[in-house]
Each structure stands twice: as C-alpha cells, then as structure tokens.
C-alpha cells in the first residue's frame, strides 16, 4: 500500500468497487436466466440459454468483472486482491436472498463469513514471496 499518488490510489479503489459489484450482479443475472425453463436438452440447451437476455446480461457483467480484475492484478498483489474482493461472496449470498428469494440459513451465512475470514487471514501475509528483491508496493 505504499507508493503511488492519490490519483493512482483512487483508481485502484474504483477498480475494486467495479470488481466487487460486477461479480455478484453477474451471478444474479446468470442465475435468473439459468433457472428459466427450457424446451431443449444437451447442446441445444446451451444455445437456448445463450439467447436468454438475463444470461447475456450476466455474461456482459462477468466479462467486465474479468477485465477489471485483470487490471487490478496489474497494479496490486494477488494476495491483496483476493481478500478485498472476497466481499463479492457476501454480496452474492445477500443478493441471492434478497433478489432471488433463496432461503439463506444461518449455517450458509456462517460458511460464507468463514470464507471471508480465511481470505482476510491470507491477506495479512507477505504479498510477494517469489521476488524477494522487489519492494512491497501496491502499484507498479
């Protein structure tokens, strides 16, 4: 988290916001489209699904997610990116309950929070263990 001006840091956090928002929103759109009844099975099932507007919206959001995550990986360490963006898991489960009407019980919430705790623990370790000479820095 050292180095880089205020503008660079703002840019990084905007990317984080984009990564954290697009993954759960894409998941919800995909989930909604995936659950709609289809007439066909097998390969035709896939074609029918790929023509579904919810699926297309989900794909668009997940493409955005992948690209923003790659951009983030270019300016921050993977072990910093993983815990920070694991907030997306919590949002996915919350949106599944709120928007999709899934029954999310205490055990499922506890499991999700354990996942976030685990990634936070990993985030406290030394980010770069393969290049000992390079300075520990958020931006390259």
């Amino acid at each position, binding site marked *: 988290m050292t180095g880089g001006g205020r503008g660079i840091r703002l840019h990084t956090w905007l990317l984080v916001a984009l990564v954290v928002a697009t993954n759960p929103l894409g998941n919800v759109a995909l*989930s909604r489209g995936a659950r709609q009844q289809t007439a066909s099975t097998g390969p035709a099932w896939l074609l029918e699904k790929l023509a579904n507007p919810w699926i297309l919206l989900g794909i668009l959001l997940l493409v955005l997610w992948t690209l923003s995550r790659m951009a983030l990986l270019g300016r921050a360490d*993977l072990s910093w990116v993983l815990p920070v963006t694991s907030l997306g898991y919590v949002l996915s*489960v919350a949106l599944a309950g709120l928007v999709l009407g899934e029954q999310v019980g205490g055990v*499922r919430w*506890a*499991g999700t929070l354990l996942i976030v705790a*685990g990634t936070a623990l*990993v985030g406290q370790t030394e980010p770069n263990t393969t290049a000992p000479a390079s300075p520990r820095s958020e931006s*390259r």
Partner: protein
Amino acid sequence: MKWLLVAIIVAATTASDFLQSRELKRSIGDWSSLWRSGWLAVAVACLAVSFFAFLKLLSMEDLSFAAPATAATYVTETVVARAALKERVGGRRWAGALLVAAGVALVARPGT
C-alpha cells in the same frame, strides 16, 4: 451431478488462474510477448469451460450454494501456487486456506 460440476469449475478455474498468474508475472509490461505465447488463450479457454459448468450448476442449484462452493478454488490455488509457482506458503496462509475450506464445507451441507 452437482459435485461433478463443482469439480469441473474448480479444476478449470485453478488452471486458468495458474496460467494467468504465470503469464502476467513472466511478461510484466511486455504485451506482445504476453499474446504471442498462446498460454493466455489456453487460460481463456479454461475460463470458458468453467463458465459453462457454472451456468449448468446455476440451472440446478441455489446461487447461495454455487458461489461459496466454488470458493474451493482458494485451497486448490494455494496448493498450485506452492507446487508450480514456487510461492512460499507459510502457516498463516495455510490457516486462511483451511478456513476457506471449512466455510465451503459448511455451505455444502444439505438443507442449510
């Protein structure tokens, strides 16, 4: 069937992230080298396999099951990072990966 799909998603995502990490670290700032090697295309192909399996899983299961279950990649990727990328994985990082695994196990319990 649902665990077969989770296994496919986890394997394909792990392969894709391994290749992305290796290629991006190998060719920092050298975009032409990044595209020429072709490994990034393999990574994208793995991502596509993972995506279609995730789509199939979502057609059968809750999102509040599918999203956390695929977090099992944190564990497999820690193992791969140590074995193939030669990253040094200390006690705290293993503990974090095990917490993630415990979380996945909780989410995976039927009827929760």
